[in-house]
């Protein structure tokens, strides 16, 4: 065991910003695990990335059930590094995961049912080796499941202690407004939205960003390009 002993000044190296109208502050830069953390990458390199990030004050690591490849392996690898290197630092970390894309075979392994979301979260907690995640996201809007069901599953993730906050990813502005309203009825504040957003893909600017500002919801863009399959049928695995 070689526990992480960060530079005593690491919290002075990065500014932290309040996430929307919430009590939670996030580092201005956070580390996403959507690539480079699957089993094809050496665990030593993954360990070095996570440790250096933390040493620079990057307290937020973002995962999803399907990150890998294979799906689940990014969470497994993160969990191993958390156990081996970050013991004693859990309360200094913001860990997030998501469910929405296809994770296992059959009708309960993707989209937005309560059945899928809570089972997936339990699997994520097992792979990560933690009692709870700080943020649990619905990864993509499900046009076929009542939004009330999906949002109540997120709310129950909080109520049961498996998550502290909830977020959504890849929802458009109108879907976001409805999700926030349903959650508010359940007594839960929508914390954060994670869209794809970069210099060449500014779809969030006309409607979504003003909507988030009005709702007091934070935004954490994923600095990645859309998969080229965006104009083709939905990708089945490994999507953002």
């Amino acid at each position, binding site marked *: 065991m070689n526990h992480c002993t960060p530079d005593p000044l690491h919290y002075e190296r990065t500014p932290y*910003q309040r*996430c929307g109208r919430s009590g939670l502050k996030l580092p201005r830069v956070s580390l996403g695990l959507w690539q480079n953390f699957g089993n094809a990458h050496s665990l030593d390199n993954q360990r070095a990335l996570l440790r250096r990030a933390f040493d620079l004050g990057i307290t937020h690591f*973002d995962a999803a059930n399907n990150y890998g490849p294979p799906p689940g392996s990014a969470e497994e690898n993160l969990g191993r590094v958390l156990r081996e290197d970050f013991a004693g630092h859990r309360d200094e970390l913001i860990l997030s995961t998501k469910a929405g894309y296809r994770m296992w075979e059959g009708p309960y392994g993707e989209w937005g049912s309560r059945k899928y979301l809570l089972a997936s979260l339990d699997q994520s907690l097992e792979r990560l080796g933690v009692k709870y995640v700080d943020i649990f996201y619905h990864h993509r809007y499900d046009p076929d499941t009542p939004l009330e069901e999906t949002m109540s599953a997120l709310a129950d993730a909080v109520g049961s202690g498996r998550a502290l906050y909830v977020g959504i990813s890849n929802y458009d502005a109108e879907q976001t407004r409805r999700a926030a309203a349903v959650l508010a009825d359940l007594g839960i504040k929508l914390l954060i939205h994670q*869209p794809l957003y970069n*210099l060449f893909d500014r*779809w969030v600017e006309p409607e979504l960003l003003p909507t*988030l*500002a009005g709702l007091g919801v934070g935004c954490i863009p994923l600095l990645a390009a859309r998969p*080229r399959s965006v104009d083709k049928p939905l990708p089945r695995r490994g999507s953002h």
Partner: protein
Amino acid sequence: MLTNRYLAGVPIDSRASKSGLFLKADPIAPEVLESVRALNEVALARGATLAQLAVLWLLRRPEVTSVLIGASRVSQIEDIQGSLSQPALSADELAAIESILAQRKSRDRPWKG
């Protein structure tokens, strides 16, 4: 820093291709590459890398709490973290970026995974 190989249109192993700006599997269209070259000039003028510019540009929006970056090497995290100690983008820089981006149509459809 963008490598010469990247600027020559071969993004393999370039820092930009692994910075999360683009998926490695994505071939870079010529008009995008032209924009990337111009954006790189904006970055170089302030002593920044393109990845740093991309992060600073997202952080210009008050709605953006944090930017999620990908990294395959420790040096990439250090590089991007370095953008946080730089001054925010100036009005002139933002105008230059808008002008570069206006030359190609931005995608405005919602991304629905």
